[in-house]
Structures are given as C-alpha cells and as structure tokens.
C-alpha cells in the first residue's frame, strides 16, 4: 500500500495493475499458477504473493515491482522467437508443491 513513486508520470501510475494480470504470460513459463506463489524481493527482503506485485505491462514486456520498495522483482519480455524471464529481483520463489 505504500507509495514511494515520485519520478514516474501519473499516466504510468494509471497503467499499473496487479500481479494477477501477469498470470497469462506466467502460465506460458510455469505449469503451477505462479500468482499464488510467494516471491522474496531482492531489494528489500519483503516476501509477497506474486498476485500482489505491481505490474506494468506494455509493448516491451511485463515488469513486476515490489509493492513495498518499488524494486523490480521480475521482468518478462517476448520476442518473435523467445520469451525472456529476468527473475534477478527475487532471491527466492516458493511454489506450493503438487500433491
């Protein structure tokens, strides 16, 4: 709920959606639903359900930010032949194990 954004334009704020909105592209990479997995932010150490990350989706790809520190947790970009996943902003991701 904290807001620490000052540099970004208001229009970018209006574009912000939830981690839930990245569920489609994530389903191309992971079989389990990643939006109910928990990610630890490499920036501030907060652990959050991926569904509550702040998502900025645009033509270049999907950027998922930490709601606590605004740091980038994951980035996904699609090219004509590949999907790029950069999860360097997450020190760990915990996914519920299949039963």
């Amino acid at each position, binding site marked *: *709920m904290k807001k620490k954004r000052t540099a970004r334009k208001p*229009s970018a*704020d*209006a*574009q*912000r*959606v*939830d*981690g*839930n*909105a990245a*569920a*489609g592209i994530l*389903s191309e990479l992971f*079989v*389990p*639903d990643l*939006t*109910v997995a928990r990610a630890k932010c490499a920036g501030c150490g907060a652990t959050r*359900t*991926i*569904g*509550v990350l702040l998502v900025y989706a645009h033509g270049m790809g999907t950027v998922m930010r930490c709601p606590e520190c605004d740091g980038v947790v994951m980035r996904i970009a699609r090219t004509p032949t590949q999907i790029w996943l950069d999860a360097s902003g997450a020190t760990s991701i915990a*996914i*519920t*194990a*299949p*039963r």
Partner: protein
Amino acid sequence: MTSIGAAPRIVWRFATVIEVLPETRETHSLILDVPGWPGHRAGQHVDVRLTAADGYQAERSYSIASPPEDSHLALTVERLDDGEVSPYLSDELHSGDKLELRGPIGGYFVWSVETGGPLLLVAGGSGIVPLMAMLRHRDRALAKADMPARHLLPVRLLYSSRRWDDVIYREELAGLAEKDPTLEVNHTLTREQPDGWTGFKRRIDREMLEAVAWPPSEQPRVFVCGPTPLVEAVATSLVELGHQPALVKTERFGPTGGSV
C-alpha cells in the same frame, strides 16, 4: 478441486459465441461455448487473443462473469473507443463466431463459499464483473441451503457507477438482494443521479467505506476491482480503517474511459 500442481496446462482454445447480450450502453456479455473448458473459480479471468489477417496479434484479459456452476462461460466486455480489442468484441462478434481464448487464469483473486465470509465486495464500473461471478456462485451454491447457512456468508456490495443507466447487472443485483436479506447492495452514482435518488452520490471514500463495510473485527474477506485509482484509494482506506492487508484482495483494471 485439484491442487495447483495437478492443474492442466493452460492452452489457447476456440470458443463459439452462443449469444451477445447487451448490458448497458457501453457493455455487453458474450455467452460462450468452450469445448474442453476445465472449469473455473469465481474471480478468475481469461486472455482473449485476436489475430489479424497479416498475423498481428492483440491480447487482452477479461474477467469471467459466469459462476462455475454454469455450463457456458460468460464474459462482460466494456467498449473502449480507443481500444484495440474491445470494439471488435463489442461491434463485430455475433452468435456462431469463434473467439480464441485461454484460461481460467489467476488463482489469487478468487472466492468460493468454502473460503467463507463475511464478504465485502467493492466495484468501480466494469470492476463488478468478477464480483458478479462471486455473487452468482454464492447464490447457486446456497440455493439449496437454509437461511442459517446464508447468514454464515453475508455479503455487502459497494458499487460505484457514473449514472444509473451505467449500472451493469442492475436488475439482477436488485433481484438477488430482494430475495436474500443477507445480501446488501449499495450503489454510489458519481456523475448523475435520477430524481429522488437517496443513495450515495460521490466517489467511494473512507467515510463511505466505514458506513458500508463490515467492521474490521468481523475479518471480512474483501475483494476490490475497478480502475487503478479507485482500487488503490479503496484499499488504502480499508487498511487505514483497520482491515488486514492480507484479507484485502485487489484487481486493478488499469486506465479506463473515465473515472467512476
């Protein structure tokens, strides 16, 4: 319900449009037959993909309006004039047409009667759609239950629209509330009110939430869906009022045609 690990891989499928139902001036519902549909939970969405003749593709997410109990899938789509996908879905699709989609998607913003209550639903504009799936699911699931069961899952809805004629599912909501004393529907009309209107007539604010919401001590499950500014204002106010952030689930739509 299968565990997430056992869930089938989400694949693109072709749905057939059964019916196109007008809801309001700017919205209508697509009733779809989706062969192989694995079932969904109330609150989930689908991705819709349109492919142009030259191969260009555009993809958008739409909330599912129908409850898991229905055999057909319903999406309610708002027409955005400058949209890339919604004008096609609004103006060009007719019964018998095919539509490519994948889903159900998203296991975070979901509710079922097993989740429990009380339930607080807050919607702005077409943000009502996934919440309507929850209300329809609750109604179907509890149809055979006696009233004490309903009292364990009471619901309060706060729904912000611009005008009375912009209220999506207006008659259905009134009908549900009329037959069910454990469902309370509160409207606020932000731009224009009919003569004799006694309800709220401003944007949702902290005072309105305090008046409508269950007290935090009741630990309601809260679902907020609408344009990003509305969702963030509501979620912030609810946490200020003492609701646990973990019980407040949000689905931001991003920008829409205007404020609600």
